[in-house]
């Protein structure tokens, strides 16, 4: 299988240790620890109010941890104000200075460094070229489209050559098509400049498509930190699984537990042996077994599979290139969701028809209940 090219080193760029941020009795961030590597594209993913933006703002210096510490490039950031941190930020609203033109916006942070007119101009042009905004330098901030404003915000941060670039939901204000284009461009840009990017997003596809690693957060806590593939295929609990696309959950009983694997008894899938997740903490004898809808395949006519379940189609939803089937399996309290490509006519399966589904036991994930 094709693996993502590992451009980053193993050196830690941002070290977040036991950071808590409380507002009165409410904990926006609860004892979070995280190490972000140099040159990594790292995403903080979670629903709104999960503490991801709070964490980003604390790295930038706009917010202070109630307890715990943050270090950037080995340097503790306690007491260092935002204007003296080696980080730069792309704001959700882009925060383009409305009284300045594009060039002046990009040169804003350079002015203070007194580089001299020539060097300043060269760096501004380099930054504008990186974000494909050549020729728009004299355009006034109020005459820019959403996508252009976003590029100006990027150039303005990149021109400072920060050690870390912080992005606060930078694509949420763009329409779908532009957003998808910018995802690719941002990823390409990050690999070209080699700067550590920390992205805050609530869009799971955005995080999966762009990141080297993702931290999934819920209610001020970090639930899982892993590569996109691992997060998607081996979610650590039901919450993470549910947040990243659909997942079928099946009740299971733990029959046997050892260091690396679990033996589970389920009603629909029988007795299954699965990998034990790294963060598995046993909670009594019950557990949950999960399988993604696209990992269940429809078995046609006489074909058989080593692992299969049989049931009845109760609903069918057509989505163009795929069809979504809801299949009732005897013994399961909730019907299974199945996504099947329409190449073989899944969109013609009649509701009420008996159906057999094949699955790969590798695709079954055990989760703590």
């Amino acid at each position, binding site marked *: 299988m094709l693996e993502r090219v590992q451009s980053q080193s193993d050196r830690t760029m941002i070290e977040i240790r036991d950071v808590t941020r409380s507002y009165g009795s409410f904990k926006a961030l609860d004892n979070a620890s995280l190490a972000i590597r140099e040159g990594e594209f790292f995403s903080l993913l979670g629903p709104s109010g999960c503490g991801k933006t709070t964490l980003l703002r604390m790295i*930038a210096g*706009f917010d202070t941890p109630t307890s715990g510490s943050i270090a950037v490039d080995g340097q503790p950031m306690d007491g260092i*104000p*935002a*204007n*003296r941190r080696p*980080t*730069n*930020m792309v*704001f959700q*609203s882009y*925060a383009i*200075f*409305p*009284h*300045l033109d594009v060039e*002046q916006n990009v040169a*804003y*942070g350079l002015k*203070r*460094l007194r580089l001299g007119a020539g060097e300043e101009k060269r760096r501004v042009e380099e930054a504008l070229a990186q974000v494909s905004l050549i020729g728009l330098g004299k355009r006034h901030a109020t005459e820019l489209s959403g996508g252009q404003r976003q590029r100006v915000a990027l150039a*303005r*941060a990149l021109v*400072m050559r920060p050690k870390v670039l912080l992005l606060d939901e930078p694509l949420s204000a763009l329409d779908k098509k532009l957003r998808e284009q910018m995802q690719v461009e941002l990823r390409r840009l990050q690999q070209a400049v080699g700067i550590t990017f920390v992205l805050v997003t609530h869009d799971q596809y955005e995080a999966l498509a762009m990141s080297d690693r993702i931290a999934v957060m819920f209610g001020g806590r970090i639930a899982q930190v892993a590569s996109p593939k691992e997060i998607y295929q081996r979610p650590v609990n039901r919450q993470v699984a549910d947040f990243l696309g659909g997942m079928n959950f099946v009740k299971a009983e733990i029959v046997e537990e050892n260091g690396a694997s679990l033996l589970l008894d389920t009603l629909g899938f029988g007795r299954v042996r699965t990998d034990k997740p790294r963060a598995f903490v046993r909670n009594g004898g019950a557990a949950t077994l999960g399988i993604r809808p696209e990992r269940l395949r429809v078995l046609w006519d006489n074909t058989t599979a080593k692992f299969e379940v049989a049931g009845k189609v109760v609903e069918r939803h057509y989505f163009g290139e795929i069809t979504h089937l809801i299949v009732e399996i005897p013994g399961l309290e909730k019907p299974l969701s199945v996504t099947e490509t329409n190449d073989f006519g899944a969109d013609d399966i009649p509701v009420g028809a008996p159906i057999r589904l094949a699955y790969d036991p590798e695709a079954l994930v055990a989760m703590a209940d």
Partner: protein
Amino acid sequence: MTAAVEGSPPLRVAGLRRSPLLQSEAVQGFALISPTFVYALILLVLPILVVIAHSFWTQHYLTIDHTFTLENYRIALTEPIYRDLLWRSLYISLTVSLLTVALAYPIAYFISFHGGRHKSLWLFLITIPFWTSYLLRVMSWKVILGYNGVLNSGLMGLGIIDEPSTALLYNSTAVIITLTHAWATFAILPIFVSLEKVDRTLVEAATDLGDGPLRSFLRVTLPLSAPGVISAALIVMIPTVGDYVTPKLVGGKDGVMIANAIQAQFGKASNWPLGAALSVTTMIIVSLMAGATVLVFRALQRLAR
């Protein structure tokens, strides 16, 4: 069946054959603003026209000679007394507006950026002095600055001066102090409004790009609140040129302003045409000064980039 498909005929307003003139949007618009327009015409434009007309006539005791003359303007512009009064009025109003804006800005800034949940309470507190009459407020400055006033007794009590100072009251400084206090609220409110409109993320962005608090203020907050500063300066400058109550009460003979002279011409001296010419001259010069102020502010704004 076909009838149902065809649908209803276009709506027609029965019995009202409107003229195309009445249906034009422009005419409807004028009709809509006409009450206010007539009001403005009668109460603003007409009096000004009457004043301008008078400025070209001549007073003969009780009658007015309606032959056109520029004599009044010659007197208004060349007589040293009127020239001095005009200069002093401009100097006082300019100083007052600059001082008022300089003092009002920090207050407006504090309320806008650090007022928190109590912004409206702060604004309310600032308007409290305005519940008393303007005359009372001017008179209270007399109490503070007078020979036996609060300031003199205070300074004497502290042993800083031996006898009451007469330098505090009845001069242009007293006028400036009184007017600066009187107009503070009118400067605070427009500056506050423009500061409220400054997106706080922009200040954060400036900080993120390396600016300390002072730099981000000078490079972002101040330029973006400039419209409020300009309007505050104009709101204070234009009316203070024509103020005649304050100079009369606290100005003494050194604090007399052009409006006192105009009032005298329309009153005791009973020379309306000269009073009118002085008014028109003052109006024109104030407009020029207001225009110049806007230009100076714009230039400063451009320099700050």
